[in-house]
């Protein structure tokens, strides 16, 4: 950080059990969802941007998992939990950004509905070695959450095949204008640039909607 305007983020001290408080100057919070298949690097990306160690909450899920999860021996079970990782970054003295990592599989869609409310947009993390695993996520975004801006970030692993952006747009059948960016989820600047691309897209989409 070399910018003259940079500042030291968390200033609030900690609780007895380690929660790191926000600076008292913070007025607003924004939220971006980071979605993708299991193992695609969601928590890595969140960790590379977050000013706190990524935290994990356990969310309750009810009927969505029935028929998918093996409930043998748990017939009385009505509630199951899914872990969700998140991080935060104080981007200006008055604004804090929360990044929520959400599993992409169909059976977790119930969880999204609540989370998508009030979100700036969705960063879809894709692994080109397992492109087909992204179809479910994109299908959900295009059908159920069509009003939510999203961008696709291709997380590069050492053995990832390199695709041209045009090829990816076609392979993933993305709506025209969807930003696709290369990204190394382990790298702080790489992850921040992916977020910038998404926010630029969200701002442009909002402009279009107002015309």
């Amino acid at each position, binding site marked *: 950080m070399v910018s003259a305007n*940079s500042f030291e983020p968390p200033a609030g*001290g900690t609780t007895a059990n380690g*929660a790191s408080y926000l600076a008292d100057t913070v007025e607003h919070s924004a*939220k971006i969802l980071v979605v993708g298949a299991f193992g695609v690097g969601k928590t890595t990306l969140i960790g590379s941007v977050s000013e706190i160690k990524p935290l994990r*909450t356990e969310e*309750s899920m009810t009927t969505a998992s029935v028929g998918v999860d093996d409930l043998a021996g748990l017939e009385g079970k009505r509630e199951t939990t899914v*872990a969700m990782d998140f991080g935060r970054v104080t981007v200006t003295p008055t604004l804090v950004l929360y990044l929520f990592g959400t599993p992409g599989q169909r059976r977790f869609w119930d969880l999204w509905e609540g989370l998508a409310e009030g979100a*700036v947009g969705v960063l879809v993390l894709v692994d080109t070695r397992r492109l087909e695993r992204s179809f479910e996520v994109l299908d959900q975004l295009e059908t159920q959450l069509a009003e939510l801006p999203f961008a696709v970030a291709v997380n590069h692993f050492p053995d990832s095949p390199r695709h041209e952006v045009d090829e990816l747009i076609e392979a993933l059948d993305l709506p025209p204008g969807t930003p696709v960016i290369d990204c190394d989820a382990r790298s702080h600047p790489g992850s921040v640039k992916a977020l910038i691309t998404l*926010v630029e897209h969200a701002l442009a989409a*909002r402009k279009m909607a107002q015309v």
Partner: protein
Amino acid sequence: MPGPGEYRDSPVRSYVVTGGRAAPTRNTVRPETLVIAASPGKPLPVTASRTERALLGMCRQLLSLAEAAVHLELPASVVMVVASDLIDSGHLVVRTPTDEPVNRDLLKELLNGLRKLV
């Protein structure tokens, strides 16, 4: 800590903590909602639950409900229900309540802030 999708059981069911409710009284309460205990502090009634006391105690300074949930070891959905009650009763205050969480000014501030992080 269990991995994603793994099953973890808790001796206290979520509906016990929330008094049987699944949704908060306010639909503006979200995991990223920032809260702080009212100042000057308002004592809780003797009937207040342990979770209410713990949540209010945790929010002496500014914190999101998702973070409070992690440190209370409760699902965020449960903490949102409990927080709504404390907001209704005036014990907990939402920092900058808004009906429109995403607006142009916020997006611009977010963009400028992120650009300075690179």
